[in-house]
């Protein structure tokens, strides 16, 4: 039986995990992820979840324990953020190369130094090459639902790739909203017990894992991994369709448009800022301005086809980046541009850097972005809500 609750994003994730019945959780606390692991610990300490919870001594070990438990076929969850994500970053390509279906929440937060605990997406961008599926959610409900979907996706025998669910720090992790918690029976039938993949350790046919491959073999392992990742697009859509059948809610595939079909100008977003942008788009539409949005739900694999289709004939595209690659530009921008160049897109693209270190992104900021697009004015890379001149 489903029920409603007033939860923050962290708690919603914890509920998604609880309902997915993982065998093992290994995690290390870090703001703003803490409430998620605290909630999970309390489920475990109260006997509401039957699961091994490993209180590891660091994130590097959180990932390593996860690698261990996933290697024997146990459903495994972990969660981190920011410095923690970087500290475990050796383990990320390790796990993806081994094709271990670990699911992780990353509570998006800025990176030191200066230290700052607030939300931007710099952490996720640091590990974009790690071979993990990188998913971004927009609200607490989606966070909960995508945990369940992610296990299904990661464990699919065609995919067998770990999934990172990015949940904007504070803005989502600490904001309470009404969330529907699906009934356990429903989840159980949607997400059955994990089916152990044949390449993992097992007693019948012992396996050697995380082996070494010389220059004669390595490249094929990696290209296989790379090509398999593209299967995520189709699987995600099909999982979401099934999800809708079971739960009556759906979240879409790799990318989603909002009032984009006839848009003259489009803003590309990831994560929670999309919601604020919707408000702005609606008000611009009321003023007769054809503004639209494209939300990227996946950054890896990168949905070039969907993106191009959704952008259609918009005359200018702005990419809102809550991150920056020092000495270049925002990373989503770089990715989108590459994809658009290949598709032969001929409009102009702008990069809007905003929200670093939790700097508020106001509706006015987003209006400014749209007017930069409409008038095609200003620098290619622009900074928003700065407290001083450049």
């Amino acid at each position, binding site marked *: 039986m489903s029920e409603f609750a007033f939860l923050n994003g962290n708690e919603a994730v914890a509920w998604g995990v609880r309902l997915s019945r993982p065998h093992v959780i290994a995690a*290390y*606390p870090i703001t703003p992820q*803490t409430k998620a692991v605290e909630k999970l*610990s309390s489920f*475990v*300490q109260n*006997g509401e979840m039957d699961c091994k919870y490993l209180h590891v001594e660091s994130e590097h070990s959180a990932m390593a324990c996860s690698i261990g438990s996933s290697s024997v076929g146990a459903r495994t969850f972990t969660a981190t953020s920011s410095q923690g994500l970087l500290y475990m970053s050796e383990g990320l390509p390790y796990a993806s190369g081994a094709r271990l279906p670990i699911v992780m929440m990353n509570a998006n937060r800025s990176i030191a130094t200066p230290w700052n605990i607030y939300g931007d997406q710099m952490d996720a961008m640091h590990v974009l090459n790690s071979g993990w599926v990188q998913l971004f959610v927009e609200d607490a409900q989606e966070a909960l639902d995508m945990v369940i979907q992610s296990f299904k996706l990661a464990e699919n025998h065609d995919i067998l790739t770990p999934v990172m669910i990015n949940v904007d720090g504070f803005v989502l992790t600490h904001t309470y909203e009404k969330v529907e918690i699906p009934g356990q029976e429903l989840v159980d039938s949607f997400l059955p017990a994990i089916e152990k993949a044949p390449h993992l350790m097992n007693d019948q046919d012992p396996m050697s894992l995380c082996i070494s491959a010389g220059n004669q073999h390595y490249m094929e392992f990696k290209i296989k991994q790379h090509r398999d990742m593209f299967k995520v697009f189709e699987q995600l859509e099909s999982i979401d369709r099934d999800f809708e059948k079971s739960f009556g809610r759906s979240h879409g595939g790799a990318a989603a448009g909002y009032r984009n079909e006839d848009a003259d100008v489009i803003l590309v977003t990831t994560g929670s800022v999309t919601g604020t942008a919707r408000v702005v788009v609606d008000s611009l539409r009321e003023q007769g301005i054809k503004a639209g949005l494209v939300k990227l739900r996946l950054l890896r694999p990168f949905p070039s086809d969907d993106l191009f289709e959704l952008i259609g004939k918009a005359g200018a595209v702005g990419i809102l980046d809550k991150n920056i690659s020092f000495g270049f530009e925002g990373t989503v921008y770089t990715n989108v541009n590459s994809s658009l160049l290949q598709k032969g897109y001929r409009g102009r693209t702008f990069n809007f850097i905003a929200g670093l270190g939790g700097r508020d992104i106001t509706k006015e900021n987003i209006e400014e972005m749209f007017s930069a697009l409409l008038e095609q004015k200003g620098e290619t890379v622009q900074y928003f809500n700065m407290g001083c001149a450049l």
Partner: protein
Amino acid sequence: MIKKLNARNIDAKECFYGHKACGGCGESLALRLALKVLGEEAYLSLPAGCMAAVSFIYPNMAFKNNAVITPFASTAAVATGIAAGLEALGKEAPLSVGFAGDGGTADIGIQSLSGAIDRGEKFIYICTDNEAYMNTGIQKSGLTPFGAATTTTPAGKAIHGCVTEKKNMFEIAAAHGISYAATASIGYPEDFLNKVQKAKECDGPAYIHIYTPCPTGWGHGSEITVDLAKEVVDTGLWFLAEYENGEFRLNKKPENFKPVADHLKRQARFRHLSEIEITQIEEMRDRKWEKMLKNWG
């Protein structure tokens, strides 16, 4: 011989001021006292943790000294890097000091600490132990004691608080053959001052582990922070000892212990404990003392 330090003869100057720690914070007292001995010439390294969080909030800098926040895992590495840098630049007798919490010491920072001690260079490491990850909201660390409720080991229906015992950081540091190691408590401030003094004088690496109650994380009134820190020694749940020239020494051998239950019940984190669990805690204490008295007696 070195002059014994006490409340009257310590430096009246403050090197740690205006920080944003909770009122009655035990850790901040430990830092303040240590700096009375270390002086403003000491170079300070603090990893992520309450003390770093409350002392470097731009534009409010609470240390008078040169000071740096280190990556959470890296207190000792940064501190020895500073020492090496200063030495290579020709500074005479540079003093580099790391201050880290229990989590930053016994968990994520233990490797860097172990490596630094092993390299054998002079630096001081002070672990301020409040028995949980406070900065992030009171999660269990390797130094959380048996029975304590934290946000990751709540007093649940199936599991009743923290099930593991405190890691023996003092003994682990000593097992490295470190030049000087000691335990302390802000409940015995003058003992602590003099141990910091010894650490400062000694040639190689030194480690001091100080017990620092946290009103916010333990759930006690801010005014009894120091009381609790004294009581914990008097109940035998914590001990004052030193390791020097390869030998252990107990600084205080209680005749008999103050009652444990009263002490625990003053802290919200222990309030759920059953009598059986409290007895278990007493037994653990007795086993520990038996061993200490036998081996270090």
